[in-house]
């Protein structure tokens, strides 16, 4: 029997509470609040308490979907990224870079948000970057 308590950060909102994942025999069996974490001091909201349920859910999206004729089709990352890049190219060529924008999220890290901003400004050429917390 292998049991590990793995410290991590809740991915559900920008608060960033410290959690402990209870991993038994490589399976995520539970989530606990980290008592000494400076952000949450041993407390969590209901989303944080149920992180393991989300991760183990059969409904969890594990690969990209591409919409084709109104239906979502499962595909690989390379293809999904290629399709997105092609559409960006077409739209920017036709209407200019200001016609696209990027929405970032509190569920990703600061660093990932920074990279998304870089992609928007330096690659796509738009200043329209917004955040899910303002929607």
């Amino acid at each position, binding site marked *: *029997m292998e049991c590990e308590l793995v410290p991590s950060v809740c991915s559900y909102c920008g608060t960033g509470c410290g959690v402990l994942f*209870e991993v038994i025999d490589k399976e995520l069996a539970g989530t606990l609040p980290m008592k000494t974490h400076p952000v949450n001091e041993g*407390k969590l909201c*209901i989303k944080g308490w149920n992180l393991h349920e989300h991760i183990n859910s059969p409904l969890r999206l594990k690969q990209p979907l591409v919409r084709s004729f109104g239906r979502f089709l499962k595909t690989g990352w390379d293809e999904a990224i290629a399709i997105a890049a092609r559409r960006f190219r077409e739209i920017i060529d036709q209407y200019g870079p200001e016609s696209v924008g990027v929405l970032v999220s509190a569920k990703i890290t600061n660093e990932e948000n920074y990279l998304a901003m870089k992609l928007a400004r330096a690659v796509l050429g738009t200043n329209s970057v917004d955040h899910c917390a303002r929607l």
Partner: protein
Amino acid sequence: MKARVRRWLEEGTVDVFIGYRQVDGHPLPYCFTRENLDALDGLINSPARYALEKIATHLASRQPDLKIGILSLDTNRRALNVLGIWNQINPENITTVDADDAASGVATPDDMRTFEPVVPGPYKQQVGIDNAMSPADAEAFDQSERFSRWMYEFEKCIKCYGCRNICPVCFCRECSLEHRDLIGTGPLPPDVPIFHLVRAVHMAGRCIDCGLCEEACPADISLRLLYRKVNQILDNVFEYQTGSDPGQPPFSLLGNQVTLEPKPLDADK
């Protein structure tokens, strides 16, 4: 102490030992095993308490014959007593080490020895219930003030279920706090005071006064005090001290003894 745990693991007295270890600068629960004996050098006692026995029940539910050692404080032992009499764990498979024992040789990291006691803010003092009160203090208010003070506390609830999730002796498969006809999951704000009173009633015979629920409550509700009152009633009315003895029967409202004379089966003849 570390040597003792090492010997236990080597000799098979225990298959896994649940204690604490400093990980990434935080004292965290840690499962020591035979395969990684060197990790034992890092065994510490943590000032931040976790319900180690709850982790043990999760392990035991997957592998019922697993022999588990637990670094224990008084509260852990009381919880283990309750878990044992409710068949959540087999006491024969559990070995405890006293974390309070100064001779145990398990260090508490100095910089974290105690947490600052939380002083309630002025508003809570004025209209709520100070978590540090005794049941008698809280009952000294007249009835309407007592009611409004408790309701102030309960109304802060965000229904995170943290009090139930962290509780070492909450193990029911179907929880009344999720039962559609009582409270139900989802809608906010929660029904108060029903949510808290249902839980309080259900803690009769379970709650071992560890205080973990109150520590986990994001709304700083004086939960421990509420359950202390329940325990006081249990003690005064039923003479039942939850978790005090591994041999005690599970708490039953009907009592443990038949007080009526058993009627002979052929009484009518």
